[in-house]
């Protein structure tokens, strides 16, 4: 293999890694945002992602059946994304109100258990409602393969990467420029003082959950475009992996979560190139272990201690 081919090969996998990392990044942002506000991880987030994907599936199927004859594809796509985000954010609000609000004063582990249990209820609920048959996500755009400079990629892949980046940009603007975003940032600086300044945690926390769930549902739609098989347990593994990314980036840091999400994608893809693919998890998590041993706070971890909540 000469140098050019090697370069092409790496670039090819870079695109794959970016795609995979996009999912992890967008989902792990949801974990990080909730952590910033509540100093808790929302362990139902992986399953919120799953429910979001199912909502996206329903909306997409409906819209394709109703409008595909007279509306262009991109309008349907945008409509699906917007409606799904709106609906899925209510799932986030529900999880906050039902599972996390009664446990504000409780130890962190109890809230973690509640989150896990809500996740199981979601999985089982979907399984009961839709049965064990595997649904496949309808393609919202026609997949076209391109070849540029010896690198193959499809428009779906590019779209996933671009939309993920776009989402993060929008989120960044939301958090930096709006009043709501400012309240969230303030909350993550000081959990105790901000409610005294007239910013109610009972408004900011559901909002945070809603934004996280909305992001996760878009990730779900994109995921459905890349891997069109839906199954009620799809959120478990990807959720835990995104959780790992959220910690790796430094809890509470949105920038860190996004970067760590991409990093995890890169690690997973490139480990699979160099070593047999069955060793992927082994090596990927050994690297995570190593990073956390030497940088226990992750990349951009905040300085405050967990003692504040206990």
């Amino acid at each position: 293999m000469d140098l050019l081919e090697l370069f092409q090969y790496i670039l090819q996998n870079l695109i794959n890694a970016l795609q995979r990392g996009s999912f992890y990044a967008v989902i792990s942002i949801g974990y990080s945002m909730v952590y910033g506000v509540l100093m808790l991880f929302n362990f139902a987030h992986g399953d919120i992602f799953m429910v979001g994907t199912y909502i996206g599936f329903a909306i997409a199927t409906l819209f394709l059946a109703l409008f595909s004859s007279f509306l262009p594809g991109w309008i349907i796509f945008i409509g699906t994304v917007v409606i799904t985000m709106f609906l899925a954010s209510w799932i986030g609000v529900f999880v906050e109100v039902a599972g996390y609000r009664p446990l504000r004063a409780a130890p962190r582990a109890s809230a973690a258990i509640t989150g896990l249990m809500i996740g199981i209820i979601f999985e089982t609920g979907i399984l009961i409602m839709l049965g064990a048959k595997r649904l496949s996500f309808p393609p919202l755009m026609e997949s076209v393969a391109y070849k540029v400079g010896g690198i193959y990629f499809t428009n779906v892949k590019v779209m996933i990467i671009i939309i993920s980046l776009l989402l993060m940009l929008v989120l960044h603007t939301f958090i930096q420029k709006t009043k709501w975003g400012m309240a969230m940032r303030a909350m993550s600086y000081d959990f105790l003082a901000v409610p005294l300044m007239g910013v109610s945690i009972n408004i900011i926390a559901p909002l945070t959950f809603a934004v996280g769930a909305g992001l996760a549902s878009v990730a779900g739609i994109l995921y459905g475009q890349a891997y069109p098989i839906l199954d009620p347990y799809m959120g478990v593994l990807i959720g835990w992996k995104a959780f790992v990314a959220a910690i790796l980036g430094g809890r509470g840091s949105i920038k860190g979560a996004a970067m760590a999400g991409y990093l995890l994608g890169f690690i997973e893809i490139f480990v699979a190139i160099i070593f047999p693919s069955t060793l992927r998890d082994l090596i990927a998590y050994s690297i995570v272990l190593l990073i956390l041993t030497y940088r226990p706070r992750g990349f951009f971890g905040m300085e405050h201690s967990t003692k504040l909540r206990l």
Partner: protein
Amino acid sequence: MEFVEKFKRMFSNVPMLGWLLGALTAVLIEYFFGYDYISYILQLPKIPVLFGTLIMLKEPMMIPSALAYDLIVYVLPILLVAKATAFATNPVAMLLEKIPLILSVILHLALFYLVLHVWAEINDYRELIVRLTMICIILTISINVINGYQGEFSCSHPGFMALGAYTCSILTLVLFVNDRMFGEALLPAWLGPWIFPFTLIAGGIVAALGSLLVAIPSFRTRGDYLAIISLAFLFIVKSAVENLQIIGGSRGMGGQPEYATLPVIFIWTILCIWIIHNFVTSIMGKALNAVRDDEAAAESMTVATRKTKMTAFMFGAFWAGIAGGLFAHVLSYINPGTFSINRLAEILAMVYFGGLNSIIGSIVGAVTINVLGEALRPLELFKWIIIPLILIFVMIFRPYGLISFKEINAKKLLRAKYKREQGA
């Protein structure tokens, strides 16, 4: 409520011995008359396995019969015998107070084992439930050492369990079984049950050594980061086992001889409860609590925090390894999928349901979740909605679990209730 008070007062003079005697009578009645007479008269197809819950959920028409069965076989004999023998059991309990506590406890446990054995004898399903429940008790108590007494949020318990299960299985398969994977047995098969405890301990030791991978990073970090480290450990162990073709890879490993019979598991469970109880009430156990509550303060009060953390992890992992070894020899088959995130959720549910920092809480949690899981089996999928809901409610109303930060005193539990009645 008044009725409950009256009921409690009526039975307040029954010592533990009396209750055990009542339970023994009940299971003997079931053993001798359960099928031939009682089930037959009540038109039940067979002896209800789990107090009739299965048949009640499957066929609502049978609810009255199943309830009547419970009443005739369990409730009435236990209550009647317990009350009727109170005059005899109290003096005996008084006598037992005079001998060393350990002997008295052993006596009671022997009686309890008898009850359990006769109850489980009825069919294999019951016996399997009892065995798996006791393994879960070991698991739950051992994770309580790390998550409750030491206050970390460790997610690596299935990993420790896997290490123990695989080590123990490999040893027994190499030594005592002629199989395809490891060839001829090295030792005669009759030696197996006697060497089995040592292979179990070897599994425990391997798990304890493996736990160092989580314990050493815990010197520098705790809380969420440690949770991730332990989670990464779990993924690593699972993935490593999947890739080791010599021990079956992801196909798993089968053919373990059934060494983990009911008495063996019972003895190990009692040993586990006893040793962990002694551990957490020792100075080391107090040090664990100190590290949990305030690490810096503990350090300044001469607690060796690193040593403490390491001991807690290794100790918890050791017992998880034992539980894993027993588990492998109950089911005679293990694969990496057995020790996945789902198992983790199950273990965490049991320990947080039962209560942190409490051995009796762990026992309650393990037994409740297990028996509930079996009893609700006819509901199929809805089981996985009901159990999480129960857990959520427990978390909301008792955030530290049902029975947390409480221990029971064996002496108080077993003493005669005679004096109290006279006082009242």
